[in-house]
């Protein structure tokens, strides 16, 4: 993808928090998708018949009991469900962090189930981005070093323009040389978002990215994620239990007892809350 570089973000935009300055990430040639219906392009991630069984002292626990799901390019999908519904396990299996007991996961044309650990490592390094709930950053590296870390691990050349743009968009320009301990929770998560987006991975997995943030910082992070899907055709899969967070997504899938039980497109917080409540009551 090619983007127009405009150098540093004008101070004017930096002061404005909302609406998020989407202008900065405008794509020149808008690829395939019609921004209005981001669900239509071919799926980037496809999972078929995923099961995951844990042995806990004789009793078998089915964390995943046959999940079929797909995620499309440029889509922002939220995975929701009550505690213990298997949403984190699903994400870990999709991301190649965990190995499902059965079923397949494809990332693009690659079937990632069955890959060896070394191959999975390369896959994560080159094609997947991660944002975790907390402890996202290495405490001994500065914000900039943290953002650049995956590229350095991969010995990839960094696209400096893209780096500058992302840094400006997430508003970290004057924090680049700070250690994480000197950053607020919101700033730390923004560093994590910048890191995940820098390499334009095929898919970004976010595990409760706003779980530890106040609502203001949370909104900020979610806005970044959403605009990245809109403006950069970035595919984002987010696990959350917060209906407000889920409402930023294009689509919400609901999980209960390891099964996909519901799905909502263009969700609102109220709608998601109601569905979730129904799920928990059932």
């Amino acid at each position, binding site marked *: 993808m090619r983007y127009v570089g405009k150098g540093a973000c004008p101070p004017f935009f930096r002061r404005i928090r909302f609406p998020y300055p989407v202008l900065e990430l405008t794509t020149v040639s808008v690829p395939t998708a019609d921004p209005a219906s981001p669900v239509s392009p071919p799926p980037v991630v496809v999972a078929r018949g995923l099961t995951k069984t844990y042995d806990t002292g004789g009793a078998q626990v089915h964390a995943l009991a046959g999940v079929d799901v797909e995620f499309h390019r440029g889509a922002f999908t939220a995975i929701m469900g009550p505690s213990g519904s298997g949403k984190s*396990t699903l994400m870990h299996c999709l991301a190649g962090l*965990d190995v499902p007991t059965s079923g397949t996961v494809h990332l693009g044309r690659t079937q990632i189930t069955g890959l060896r650990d070394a191959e999975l490592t*390369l896959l*994560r390094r080159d094609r997947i981005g991660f944002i975790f709930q907390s402890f996202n950053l290495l*405490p*001994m590296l500065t914000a900039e070093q943290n953002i650049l*870390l995956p590229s*350095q*691990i991969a010995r990839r050349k960094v696209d400096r323009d893209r780096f500058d743009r992302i840094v400006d968009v997430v508003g970290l320009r004057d924090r680049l040389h700070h250690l994480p301990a000197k950053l607020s929770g919101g700033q730390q998560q923004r560093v994590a978002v910048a890191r995940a987006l820098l390499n334009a991975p095929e898919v970004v997995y976010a595990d409760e990215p706003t779980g530890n943030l106040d609502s203001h910082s949370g909104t900020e992070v979610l806005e970044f994620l959403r605009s990245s899907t809109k403006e950069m055709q970035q595919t984002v899969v987010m696990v959350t239990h917060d209906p407000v967070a889920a409402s930023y997504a294009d689509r919400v899938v609901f999980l209960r007892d390891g099964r996909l039980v519901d799905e909502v497109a263009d969700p609102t917080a109220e709608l998601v809350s109601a569905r979730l409540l129904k799920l928990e009551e059932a």
Partner: protein
Amino acid sequence: MLRTTLAGLRLHKSRYVTTVLAILLGVMFVSGTMVFADTLEAGYEKTVMGSAASVDAVAVPSEPDSGGSEEPEEALLTTEQLDEVRALPEVAGADGVVNGEAVLLDADGRAFGFVPPVAVSFGEHTRFSAEEGTLPGNGGEIALAASTAEQIGFAVGDRVTVLDREQAKREFTLTGLVEFGTEQDYSFRGAVVFDEDTLREMATVEGYVEIDATAAPGHTDQQVSDAVAAALGSSAEVMTGDEFGVKLAEGTGADTLMLRTVLLLFSFIAMFVAGIVIHNTFAILIAQRQREMALLRCVGAKRSQVFRSVLLESLAVGLLSSALGVLAGVGVGYAGAAFGGPLLGMEGASAVVVSPTAMVLGMSVGTVVTVFSALVPAMRATRVPPLAALRTSATAAGLEKGTGRVRAVFGALCFLASAALVALTRMSGPSETNLVIVTAAALVAFTGVVVLGPLLVRGIVRVLGIPLRRTGVPSMLAVDNSVRSPRRAAAAMIALTVGATLITGYSVVSASIERTLTAQLEEQFPIDYQITPQMFLGEPAAAEPEETSAEDAPEEETASEEEAPPEEEAAAADGTVGAPDVPAVPAEVVRVLREDPLLERVMGQRSAAVESDNGTLWVNTHTSTRFGEDMTADTVEGDISDMGPGKVVLQGASADGFSVGDTFTLPLDDGGELSLEVAAITEEGQMLYGVTLHEDDFARAFPEITSDEYVYVRAVPGADPADVREAVHDAVEDHPTLQVMSVSEVKEQLSSILDIAFYTIAAMLALAIVIAVFGISNTMALSVLERTRESALLRALGLAKGQLRRMLGVEAVLLCLIGAGIGIVFGVVFGWAAGAAVLPGLEFTVPYAQIAVFIALAVLAGLAAAVLPARRAAGTSITGALAGE
């Protein structure tokens, strides 16, 4: 509270594995030393007691009153006295032991030993007996001390040549071997055994050095010894066999005490290092369990209870690992005695001796060190505010604060003080006190390292990090990780610094000594062979002089035979100086050598002692030696090539108050004086020592000394070494007692002696280093535990397992390199200071090859230390680590 502590210990037991190992190893060394020394001592005692108990009474000449400093003549028991003892009704049989000395020739026809072995005879009623074969029964038979036979390579049945009193060869058949145990003279010089008549033919002997008696039936050993005492009166000291055995055993006890002390010194070092490791482990464990401690406080535990809980934990760990250490020590001590005992002259296997002292010492040292090391961390634990429990992950945030300015200043002051102390030793001359000062300086500097440790770690990592960062992400992360808790890193590496300092220091001293002595041989006085007569220790009572001049030790050392320690031999050489029958190289040998065209120069050295107002003057001359050409020396003043008739070269105490051009007056025996002009004053530790005269002046002053005490031979340049060797050996063919040393042999011997000492010391220090590596491994393991989530994050971001392992490996190697690096720098500096403080004219030498080996070992140690932690980190499941806190 006790229950909480023990539950905590059970839960965290894997974290204590390396700590337990560190304590265990230290304690093992301590109690192993005790068991080894005890067993060895018991073994010696058994040997000695066994032989002594075979007779019932032992009479030795009582030592005559030594009036003043005069060395008393050795008193002997007479034949009449032996007859008296034999006539006693209580005595079944009695025999005397006769000692002399005789030159024993080896298979090549050269004399054995730097001094001739003791020639001894004893009858059947003495405490000695043949261990193998039979005792000599006639003039054609001989027995040897078992150790002598082994050294010289003779077995029973061989033909053995011994020189008689007139230095004529006489052949004997070796019929038996005698075990003399560890009794000083016999074991040090070696012993040949004849029957009494033959001994009297072979050597000049008069009486008996010992009379042993066995009891007639119906008499106790006490009665026999009383009777013998009554018969011999004041001329003899009489004991029962058992009493005599106890007395002998005391003598050997002194030997083992030395060994025990040295080994305990090394165990002290090991325990010290273990203490550092334990301290660091507890400090980290407590930092990690801050929340746990705070929770305890929250639910109502008092500060003192938390403190006690931590101490109790250390006590439990200390007791357990000390107990294991004592057990291991018993095993090691026993193994040491079983394998090392025979090498140290202990006979046969002896039951392992585990004294209560060994157990108690091991237990208490281990426990006390552990509890003591945990004191500071325990104090720190009490300072955890209860609210810390509510905060998240207190440890994960933990990037340590910088080193305080007070710390930096104090550390810098330590280094300054240390440098000042070293400078002090450089100003004053060499002395033993300086060695103490240098040690103190090293300790002060070491304190500086402890204080500045975190700062040093950060500084060094910054420098080493520059190239390392370029080599990839794992190295970059390792560099960053290694300075995350500099204090922890510093504590881990300091344990290694101790060992590295000691080993490097010793290797520098050793290399410098070797270089210095070799330089003296090669540059100051280049020769190829040295010929000396065998020194006679025996009659006529060549008593060792009180004064053993220290400055001639280096030179004497070049002539050393391996079994003669330098001091002894220097003393032996001095003892004969000036005596009327100075053993000398026969003039004929010198003449033959001088005629040989292969030999360029044949130089002699003669010496005499002159009593002057300022004490004894050592007066030397070098014959046929061109000063400044054949021999050079570093001078304080003047030039030794100005030496000539009527001139003198001075050194050391004899040069006090003189300068070049002054007139030196040498008092002569006949009452006259010799006035000489001072040509040069040489520095200490040179080939020239004392007062050196020109050979003409020496001949005038000491006309009775006409032959050379030492002869030095230098071959024509380019001559075939084999031909030269043959020429020199041919010249001494008819004089088997002359000791021929080739300088290259001397150098080889010197370096092999120094090497053996080095490897022994290195082996002893190895344990301390192993403990330090455990400490580093432990620190790494605990850090890995602390960074579980971080490692998982890195793995999620695409860091391969191998890269993660490499990251930890590089971090451990960095730590080891810093520790070893500081140690090496300290070792070089203080090795130089210590060497220069004691040895004048030391040629400072840095053993680069050895240091390279140390650095390579440090890298290997780092890799070894990282193996387990790295496996653990790479093996952790990513999802599990991300989920759990």
